[in-house]
């Protein structure tokens, strides 16, 4: 789960990082007030779950409260990568001498968190990794020990040779690790970590992703979820326990299992269609989930054809069939439905569907081809 910059700033502050005080507001007038109370020049930053907000015009400087009001007025309501900006952060500007990158990512290869720092901060770290990889320094963190003091020291002296900067930087790295660990994060970043000409080290940006699987033990973090950042259909799916991602195609795909769902979408593409979504109803056999899945797909105006692809293992085909019958009795389906079912209780499912007037196929390729044709693509 992504959280917003202003939320990550709070968490980082709580772990002792030198994050300047700032305010988050949702109106231009609020931005003017914030600028007034912060005093001096401020920066207005869109709070939105999308990278590249600077390039998209989502970050603006303001010399006084009036400029802050105007800037916030321009940013609030703006769309960045399909997401509407509903909140802005108002933060004091800093007198930047140097900009560094510091971050912790979960590294799949070492199966450990890796702390990365670079004296080339303020830009996309993936770019630095490609153009100037020797400017990135790493320490693998043993999860049984956490980030050790000497590791923080080693990295801090890669960023600053001056001990009066390296010492607080080491403190920032240790604090960032504590924040990462205690929030069950999969990413924690400060970009840039700056030094000022007066010799301060400050974290003037904050980014954090939280492990979805760990949210059960972090109700306070779960409460930070920005439901506005999800499509309403995605929120509904999440609440129903479905794994759903809306795409732009016309063939709705409802599958049990994430791998098979992706393979089904790929096969739609292979046969000339475009998948309208990823949708995994998971391993359970709850007909209610099937009903919800069908409603979500049917509610997508782009969808011209709906495909079910169910491989019965734990999932019982008859449960899915019952769900389909139940859902279609509740809502008038305006698009053709193609059903592929095989495996556990396949015969019962075919019977149930037959009574309700549906035909079911057992072959995946044939069903996908039919669903693509039904969308009018071929």
């Amino acid at each position: 789960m992504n959280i917003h910059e202003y939320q990550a700033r709070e968490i980082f502050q709580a772990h002792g990082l030198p994050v300047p005080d700032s305010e988050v507001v949702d109106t231009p007038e609020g931005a003017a007030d914030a600028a007034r109370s912060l005093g001096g020049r401020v920066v207005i930053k869109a709070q939105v779950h999308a990278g590249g907000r600077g390039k998209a015009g989502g970050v603006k400087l303001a010399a006084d409260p009036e400029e802050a009001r105007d800037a916030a007025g321009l940013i609030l309501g703006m769309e960045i990568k399909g997401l509407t900006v509903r909140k802005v952060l108002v933060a004091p500007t800093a007198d930047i001498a140097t900009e560094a990158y510091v971050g912790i990512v979960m590294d799949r290869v070492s199966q450990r968190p890796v702390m990365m720092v670079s004296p080339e901060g303020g830009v996309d770290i993936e770019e630095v990794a490609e153009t100037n990889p020797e400017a990135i320094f790493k320490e693998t963190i043993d999860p049984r020990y956490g980030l050790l003091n000497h590791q923080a020291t080693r990295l801090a002296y890669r960023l600053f040779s001056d001990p009066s900067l390296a010492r607080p930087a080491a403190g920032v790295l240790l604090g960032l690790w504590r924040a990462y660990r205690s929030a069950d994060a999969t990413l924690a970043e400060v970009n840039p970590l700056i030094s000022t000409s007066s010799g301060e080290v400050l974290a003037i940006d904050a980014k954090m992703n939280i492990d979805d699987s760990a949210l059960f033990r972090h109700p306070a973090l779960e409460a930070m979820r920005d439901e506005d950042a999800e499509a309403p259909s995605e929120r509904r799916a999440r609440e129903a326990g479905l794994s759903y991602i809306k795409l732009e195609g016309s063939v709705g795909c409802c599958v049990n299992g994430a791998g098979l769902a992706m393979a089904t979408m790929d096969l739609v593409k292979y046969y000339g269609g475009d998948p309208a979504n990823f949708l995994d109803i998971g391993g359970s056999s709850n007909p209610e989930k099937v009903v919800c899945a069908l409603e979500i797909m049917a509610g997508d105006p782009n969808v011209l054809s709906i495909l079910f692809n169910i491989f019965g293992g734990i999932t019982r085909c008859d449960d899915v069939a019952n769900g389909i019958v139940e859902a279609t009795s509740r809502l008038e389906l305006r698009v053709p439905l193609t059903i592929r079912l095989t495996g556990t209780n396949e015969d019962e499912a075919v019977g149930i569907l037959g009574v309700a007037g549906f035909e079911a196929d057992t072959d995946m390729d044939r069903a996908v081809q039919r669903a693509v044709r039904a969308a009018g693509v071929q």
Partner: protein
Amino acid sequence: MAIFIGEHTRLVVQGITGRDGSFHARQMRDYGTRLVAGVTPGKGGQTFDADVPIFNTVVDAVEEAGANTSVIYVPASFAADAILESADSGIELIVCITEGIPVADMMRVMPYIEERGCRLVGPNCPGLIVPGICKVGILPGQIVLPGRVGIVSRSGTLTYEVIFQLTSAGIGQSTSIGIGGDPIIGTDFVDCLRAFEADSETDGVVIIGEIGGTDEQTAARFVSENMTKPVVGFIAGQTAPPGRRMGHAGAIISGSEGTAEEKTRAFRENGIAVAERPADIVDALQAVV
């Protein structure tokens, strides 16, 4: 012989009195797996289906029932400790079916497992099946066929689909193993490929990858450098958008890493025949095995 499981397997089910645990315990026993014990703290001394002893702890199952393999069906918040318990009790192979274990928990589990020299399959995986002999996990027994092709996959139902298509075409399997869709897993592609290469009952291997991470690329290099047996590959997720988690916690394209295109290229460049559709796996296999 097969890989990892077989007639020598003496299984203990952790969470045997739960809904999933009891259902699959019966499925596995009925398939022929030697189910020697179950574990549910507090139910020690009872029996499961009248003939399987239940213990409070795994160490009791090892000492009193001779269990050497465990399969875990406990809820996500307890699953990491269940793995540690098995590792600590002398279990040699631990298969963790549970989905949704926090990444931080798994990062602590891995060095613990490695220190004790035992093998973990999963978590968030369907387990293993040796057709006609033994199954550990949730792979459906009715779709497999004894034979000489090994299958290793990050998926669940996609694996079933491939097994089903192979079986339908008369191609049998030596062992099918689902290694799980999480970013941090125990046994990986390379471990399985190495085992299949060494297995005298396997003639060729199907590897089913998906977007996210670089395990497929590592596997491809291993195949080109270390394998003599033919390998056929398939990658799911060509149509997946970057930055979105496609169900599995591990199935996410982050940055420039982990696209299906890259993985497919790595397969091709390292001599793995790539199937464009699941159905093409059958043809590709028939061409090489």
